[in-house]
């Protein structure tokens, strides 16, 4: 048995589910403690390349904590301790030799609340490129356009590139943030409740974009909206109380999950023995 198969718990995930697939992200025996509380407990998770994987589970189950291990955003939190292994595109994310800026360039992140900078639309998208030292006006323009197109926003903002990004709608702002992330050509996109502030139409547009992104990017999406996970994700992981309970193809999770705990959660059941 290969090391990779070894890292999969058959009770959590069918052993051959990701056979032959390259992995974008991997957690092995990952535990995370905040000063008082254990947020993740020996999680083994595999996120395949160029697919959308959704993380679902009740509030406080550790979804966001897990997501933030992959770009080491948890490092910023005082008292936060991580143990186990986190691999990003084959590299050990927590190794001393791993350069954090490079890790974060390759792993883009989109947050719940759209957070454009108080600058023009174009400058928002060019921000990371300028930070990386790109100066050519022509090249910047090209890269900005390409990123906005990839984020499905170009047609809506092509005549407003110099307007303040804060004047865009919430849905547009969220896609602008994605364009900003895409501009630096990441390979993985982490999304933490990215559509929860959007109206239904913007949400659908956003979901269309996520599905299109899987052609080139690996997406790990935290969502409270189970229909959203069902609509966009190829794979779905169910977390509860810091543990990964079940990982499977989304079709399977939403029609016939293997575990009663998953079933109870996605169908909105409350079990008496769990209180």
């Amino acid at each position, binding site marked *: 048995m290969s090391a990779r198969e070894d890292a999969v718990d058959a009770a959590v995930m069918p052993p051959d589910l990701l056979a032959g697939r390259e992995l974008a992200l991997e957690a092995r025996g990952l535990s995370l403690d905040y000063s008082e509380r254990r947020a993740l407990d020996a999680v083994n998770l595999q996120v395949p390349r160029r697919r959308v994987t959704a993380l679902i589970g009740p509030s406080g189950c550790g979804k966001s904590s897990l997501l933030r291990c992959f770009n080491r955003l948890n490092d910023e939190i005082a008292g936060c301790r991580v143990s186990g292994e986190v691999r990003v595109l084959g590299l050990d994310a927590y190794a001393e030799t791993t350069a954090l800026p490079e890790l974060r360039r390759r792993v883009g992140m989109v947050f719940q609340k759209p957070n454009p900078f108080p600058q023009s639309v174009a400058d928002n998208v060019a921000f990371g490129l300028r930070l990386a030292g790109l100066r050519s006006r022509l090249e910047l323009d090209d890269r900005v356009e390409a990123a906005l197109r990839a984020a499905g926003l170009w047609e809506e903002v092509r005549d407003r590139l110099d307007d303040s990004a804060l004047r865009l709608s919430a849905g547009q702002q969220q896609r602008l943030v994605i364009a900003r992330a895409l501009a630096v050509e990441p390979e993985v996109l982490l999304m933490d409740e990215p559509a929860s502030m959007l109206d239904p139409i913007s949400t659908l547009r956003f979901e269309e974009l996520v599905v299109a992104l899987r052609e080139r990017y690996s997406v790990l999406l935290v969502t409270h909206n*189970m*229909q959203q996970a*069902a609509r966009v994700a190829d794979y779905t992981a169910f977390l509860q109380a810091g543990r990964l309970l079940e990982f499977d193809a989304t079709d399977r999770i*939403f*029609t*016939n*999950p*293997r*575990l*009663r705990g*998953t*079933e*109870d959660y*996605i*169908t*909105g*059941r*409350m*079990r*008496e023995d769990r209180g």
Partner: protein
Amino acid sequence: MDRLHLGQHISQQFNSELAALTKQVLAMGGLVEAQLATALEALAARDLRQVAHVVAREDEVNAAELEIDARCTQILARRQPAASDLRLVLAVVRMVANLERIGDEAERIARIAEKLGNAELPEHYAFKLAQMGSLVRDQLRGTLDTFARMDETRALERLRRDREVDVLYKELTRLLVDLMQRESERVPAALEMLWGARALERIGDRCKNICEQVIYLVRGKDVRHTGLSRSAAPLPETKQ
């Protein structure tokens, strides 16, 4: 009883919607069962009053199908059910379509009583048909019972018992074909009887379809077209 834990949703409203749905299916099942019983009695006794009774109640069966379908549509649109809830709604839609067709077959059997009128056939033919009728009635009752109990093991047993219906059907067909070859004046009556046997055989098949849906909704395993009825294989593993 509550194998699917239908009453454990956080939404009490959803609990009662699903409870009402299963109750309606069972009520429709009871109605169809009564239709079949009356039709078989009408056939045995050539009782035209009972024939009329079956024909009149056929509308109720159709109305029940429409009502249950509408309820399922509402649940799909408003609740977006997942997992066992989704399977329940899908299974119910398929089951009521089968129940409605069983209703049609019952009506067909009743009308055969009318067509046969006073035509007589040797007693053992009627006996065989009655034997098949009571077997099919038992299959229908048992099938509905597996749904009421959400019992996939019994559903599988029922499904496999359809073979007994098929055996009787083949026997009766052979007897009737022989009779028609020997005594041409009996052809019209024998043909009617053959249609009756065929209607019963089809009801058996419909019961089988319903049993498959019970297995699907409890286990999440679609066993249609898998040859499960002809094999002795056990059901797939149940969830933990």
